Each structure stands twice: as structure tokens, then as C-alpha cells.
């Protein structure tokens, strides 16, 4: 398929892989974190780790917006969804995220009017078509999806649509990365920066990683060759002893970001003083809420959500697994209190989370698997 196959070329991949192998120090172990859940998906889907030398380990980061939502926020969404006047709208991958008493799919089965949408604009259209009902959009995602929520709210305001509100759970990417970098037991060498987030915020926000923490960062695209090339760029930096922010995804990511999108976000949102992340705890200034100018559309105010906190169980060690200190099976609750059916921590929620992958496929998910020749 045009514009896709070019970025999945097996022959080119072997050439880039050979380049990585040629500059890998056999006596060194490299831990590279891909921050974004979309990258994790690409790594699994195309089997990228099989192309890397044994010394290069990829660590899956905190950048999956549905995985990091704490149970309390899911529970509050469910409480709003259960109101008889409400049509509750959300993205598909939100439907299965577990709260303390079930997920949205189950609440829908109990009778709540929950509809999956592909864009917040679809939610706004539902509001326009159902003036007698209250339509709530469950907004999730990093800076990637935040601009579309912002634009939708600007449009709702302009059109004066009063039966529409947003339950805002947008988070920002830099604070959790900084929190990881601040931990004294961190064992990561370099970072693959999130490409889609960077189409909005640009590359400048990552400069602190190289300047203050001496960690190289390469902003990467989502096709498998993008990732492989980014790993090569990081390995070159490590070999040269350089520490820079580089942009591999130049075909989409401008260094300064998307100014129009940033302007809309600045008008519609403001930073929360702190926000809770599943498995990572509270992180300062790591999430967005609606600004006072958009307070009328804020579902948190409209339904006075109480700000319930469902504590992560103390035994959960997602933070340690993320930092590369523990392997999934070394976590205290792995496979017992925490399973893909009933996940406690973020890494068990998505099937690509490190713990869920290990649970489903065992050691095979960390090993190179030989399946032999093609015929």
C-alpha cells in the first residue's frame, strides 16, 4: 500500500539494523525507553526487538493515555454516564479501562447510554441532534488529542450549544518523563520521544532532557523504519558521547510545534496543580482542565464530581517496572492481584503494557523467537 509499505521495507530494515549492530558495544547494556504507547504498539506489531542486538533493550514508557488514568477518574466518568439524562461519549479504547466497579462496556450493559465516537466533533453533533439530552464527552489523551477537544469546545461556545460538556482528562507528556528522570534509581540511557505529541508541542520541550539530565532524545515517527532509524540515531549519540534532542519525524513535526493548536489549547485549557497517574502517583502540573472561560462546559463543575480517589494498591510496582528496576514477574502483585482481566497497574491495562504482554506470552515476550525459514 502506497505511503505505508515504503516505511515497512524489510530490506532497508536489515540495513539499518546492521548499522545499529555495528556501533553496539558488546560489553555494554543499553536501555532505551519509548515514551509513547503508539511506539510500543509498532514495536510489537512489527517485531522490532528481533532486529536489535541483545545488548539493546527497549523499555515501554508511561505514554499510553488510557493506561495511566487512575481508577478514581474512571469511576467519576461512570457516575456521570449513569445519569439518565446523559448521553456519554468516548473513544473506543476507553471502553475497557477498568474502574473500581467495572468498565464502561459493563455500565453500558446495565443500561447507561454510552456511545463510542471517533472525534469529539461527533460528540458535539450528537448534542446538536439531541437537544433534550445532556451530552458529555470523556476527553482523554496527551497533547495529541487535546487540540481537537479544544477546537470542539471553541465551536460549541460559538454555536451556543448548552447541552454539551467535557469531562477533561487530558494529560501532558513532559511532567511524567521529568518525574522518571528525577528518580535516583533510574536505569535508562536514552529516550525515543513521542511523535504525535510533538506535532503539537514541537521538540523544544524536550531540551531539558539533554541539558539537565544528560539523556539523548530522538522524536520518532510511528512506522517501523522510523523507530529503527531513531534507535540508530540514539545509539550514534551514545557512541559519540553526544546528548541532544534530534527530530527523526521531520516530515510531520516542526521544531516549534503547531502554533495554531497551541493557541487553541491555551485558550481552552489550564494546567491542574497536580494529577494522579495510575501506578505513578501524583505528578505536579501534569494534566489539563478547562479554563474559567470554558467553565460552563466543564462536566466536573456541571455534575460536581467529588474528586474520588481510589488508591492504587500499595503493592503495585508499576513505577519500578517503568524505571527498569524490576521485571514484571518481580512485582509483588503480578499474576495474583493484578491480571489483564482485573488490572491494578497501568502496565497491565493495555495488551501491549509490559506486564500484560509478559502475562499473556510469558518469557517469549522478552526473547527473540526463532521460527525458522520461510518454506
Amino acid at each position: 500500500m502506497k505511503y505505508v509499505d515504503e516505511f515497512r521495507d524489510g530490506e532497508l530494515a536489515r540495513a539499518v539494523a546492521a548499522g545499529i549492530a555495528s556501533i553496539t558495544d558488546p560489553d555494554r547494556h543499553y536501555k532505551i525507553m519509548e515514551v509513547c504507547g503508539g511506539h510500543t504498539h509498532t514495536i510489537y506489531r512489527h517485531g522490532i526487538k528481533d532486529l536489535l542486538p541483545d545488548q539493546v533493550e527497549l523499555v515501554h514508557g508511561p505514554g499510553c493515555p488510557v493506561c495511566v488514568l487512575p481508577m478514581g477518574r474512571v469511576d467519576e466518568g461512570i457516575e456521570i454516564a449513569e445519569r439518565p439524562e446523559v448521553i456519554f461519549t468516548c473513544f473506543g479504547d476507553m471502553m475497557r479501562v477498568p474502574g473500581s466497579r467495572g468498565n464502561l462496556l459493563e455500565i453500558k450493559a446495565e443500561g447507561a447510554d454510552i456511545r463510542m465516537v471517533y472525534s469529539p466533533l461527533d460528540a458535539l453533533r450528537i448534542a446538536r441532534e439531541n437537544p433534550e439530552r445532556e451530552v458529555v464527552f470523556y476527553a482523554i489523551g496527551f497533547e495529541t488529542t487535546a487540540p481537537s477537544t479544544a477546537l470542539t469546545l471553541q465551536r460549541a461556545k460559538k454555536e451556543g450549544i448548552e447541552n454539551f460538556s467535557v469531562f477533561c482528562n487530558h494529560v501532558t507528556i513532559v511532567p511524567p518523563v521529568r518525574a522518571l528522570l528525577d528518580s535516583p534509581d533510574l536505569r535508562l540511557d536514552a529516550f525515543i520521544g513521542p511523535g504525535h505529541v510533538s506535532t503539537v508541542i514541537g521538540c523544544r520541550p524536550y531540551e531539558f532532557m539533554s541539558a539537565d539530565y544528560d539523556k539523548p532524545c530522538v522524536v520518532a515517527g510511528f512506522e517501523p523504519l522510523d523507530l529503527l532509524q531513531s534507535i540508530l540515531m540514539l545509539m550514534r549519540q551514545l557512541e559519540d558521547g553526544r546528548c541532544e534532542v534530534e527530530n527523526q519525524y521531520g516530515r510531520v513535526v516542526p521544531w516549534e510545534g503547531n502554533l495554531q493548536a497551541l493557541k487553541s489549547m491555551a485558550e481552552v485549557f489550564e494546567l491542574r496543580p497536580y494529577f494522579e497517574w495510575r501506578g505513578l502517583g501524583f505528578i505536579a502540573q501534569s494534566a489539563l482542565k478547562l479554563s474559567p472561560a470554558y467553565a460552563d462546559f466543564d462536566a466536573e463543575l456541571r455534575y460536581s464530581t467529588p474528586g474520588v480517589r481510589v488508591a492504587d494498591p500499595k503493592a503495585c510496582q508499576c513505577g519500578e517496572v517503568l524505571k527498569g528496576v524490576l521485571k514484571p514477574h518481580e512485582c509483588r502483585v503480578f499474576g495474583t492481584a493484578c491480571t489483564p482481566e482485573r488490572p491494578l497497574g497501568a502496565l497491565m491495562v493495555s495488551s501491549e503494557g509490559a506486564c500484560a504482554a509478559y502475562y499473556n506470552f510469558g518469557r517469549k515476550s522478552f526473547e527473540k523467537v526463532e521460527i525458522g525459514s520461510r518454506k
Partner: protein
Amino acid sequence: MSEQREQRVLDALEQSRRRPPKFTAPRIDMSHGAGGKATHKLIEGLLLPAFNNPALAPLSDAALLPFGDAQLAMTTDSFVVRPLVFPGGSIGELAVNGTVNDLAVSGATPIGLSAALIIEEGLETEVLTHEVEAMANAAARAGVSIATGDTKVVERGKGDGLYVITTGVGVADPECVFSTASVRPGDKILCSGTIGDHGAAILIARGDLELEAEVLSDTQPLTPLVKALKDAAGSELRFMRDPTRGGVGTVLNELARDSGYGVAMWEERLPIRDVVHGACEILGIDPLYVANEGKLLAIVSSEAADAALEALRNTDGGEDSQIIGEIREEPARMVLMHTGFGGTRMIDMLVGDPLPRIC
């Protein structure tokens, strides 16, 4: 020390995986109907223990019932598709083909179908007529009669226009006993054409996505393809399934689990139409889990595989057939795909509905 602990954890997981599933959900939700893990739990945790009998236990596409010296094959399926008419077919045609195909891949010759229609108050007669004619045509094409039936009308709002339930009876061929128990390492996995066509056609026809693409459902009777395979491979044909709900990925997982062997497949050999591939890329859905209504997967010994492939390709509706993988000793009970990019990927069973990803 750490190795021992890891082994303990892995052993415990393996044990719990082999235990028969319990159905613990307090209510049925949509994931129980998606054909993946939740559907399995429903069937194996609730239905199988209640009905417990040897005909049902293998959970194959059709049950085999002893009848004198012969064996009857029996299967049933309900069709609840929206919209009723979609590019490439409609619910009536689907309902006949679906049941005919479940018999065909079980190695049975269909001899009669029943059809039950649950009709919603207000349905235009023209629509109903169209579907009844579609059923009649599909039955004639498959060479089977609709021998009995039932009609019920439900109040407006209590059905999506029309639901169709078909049951099929066939005579099992004593020469062909298909079972996962006869599958052996080295056997090849044949796929009779492009995957994901039906599911993609329905998704696009629903119009929620504002995607415009020409994708036709692949609904068709598999009887000619099955006959071609049997003629070409004879007893070297070990097992067949039609990868409907849950798609090729789910069926291969069932095969790996039931046979106890591993499945290895090659991404570059998967026949996928460009337009289906494109739609799936945009929606963030994997064609491996998208439904088919006119394709079969066949396990054939490696000696007979080339002849079987040739036979499929020479039959109408099988032109795009491919050998997509093979059975391996290891990794036992798992499905691995060699990606076009040069790596390997574990293919799991579908967890819920194939929901689009945002990231």
C-alpha cells in the same frame, strides 16, 4: 534465584490458563458477542458445563451426531447484522451461506436448512421480500433446500428490522474426519483468499466513519472450495475452519490451543486487499481480527499442500489462496507471525470488540 522465581510465576500462569474458565461477569456486555476471549468464557464457562455432552464438547463449527451407521452434522447460527443490505450481500444471503459453510468446513454435505425470521413491526414488505429472495437464491446456489422455518414479529424498537436464524443438517463424509487431533507439526495452513473483506465492508457501510471506499463483503458458499480441497488432498486434509467472527487471528489461536502445537505464519503471505488494509490502518484495526464470510482456513500435510493450493486457486472464489503458515512443535499453544519487517510478533486471541485505538 531470580530464574527460579520467574519459572514459578510462569508455571502458576500456565496452570491457571489450563483450568476451565469460570464465567463471572454479572451481566452480558458487547464484548461477549465479539467472538474473542469474552465469548470463549461465556461458551466454555457457562454453556458447555450446563449442556455437557460429547457432541458439543469439541466446540467445532458443526456437531456430529451418530445416526445408524452414518453421522449427521448439525449447526446453527443467528444473524443480527446492521445494515441489512451492504455492499456485496445482505442478511438473507449471509444467513444461508454462514450455515452452509459451517457444515462444509466440517466435511459434511448440507441436506436441509431451517430458517427462523424475527421481524420488527414496521419493516417494509419490499425489504423482507428482498431478503427472502436472497435466501432462496443462496440456497439454490449451495444446492440445499430451506425445508422448514418460523416467523415471529416483535414490537417496533425491539429488533433491528430483521434477525435471521438458520440451522443446517448435513451428512458427514465417513472418509473425512476432521479434527485438531490429526494436526501434525510441519502441516501447512492454507487461506482461501483475501481476509477482512466482510468486516471492513460492514464497518464502512454503517457510515459512522465517513470513509468512502469500495469494499465488498465476501459472503459466498464454501462448498466448491471444500470439494476441490477434498479431491486434491484426500486424507491429507486434516482440518478446516471458516474464520468468521474473531477473524483469522482468533481461529488460529483456537487451533494452537486445541492441538497443543504452535502456529507460525508469515505476514507478507497474508492476502489482504489494499482497500481493506488501508481502511484498517486508518481505523487502527488489525485485519487479522476482522470477520470473513466466504473464506476457509485448511490444515493440509506438507506433502499435499502444493496440490491443495493449486486446487483452491483453480476454483471460483479461491483465486487468491495462499499458504500463510505452518504447524510447529514450539512455541506450543501460541501463534507467532513473522512480520514483513523482519521481526516476529505474538498473535493473541481477540480480547474484546476490535476497538479503534487513539494512540
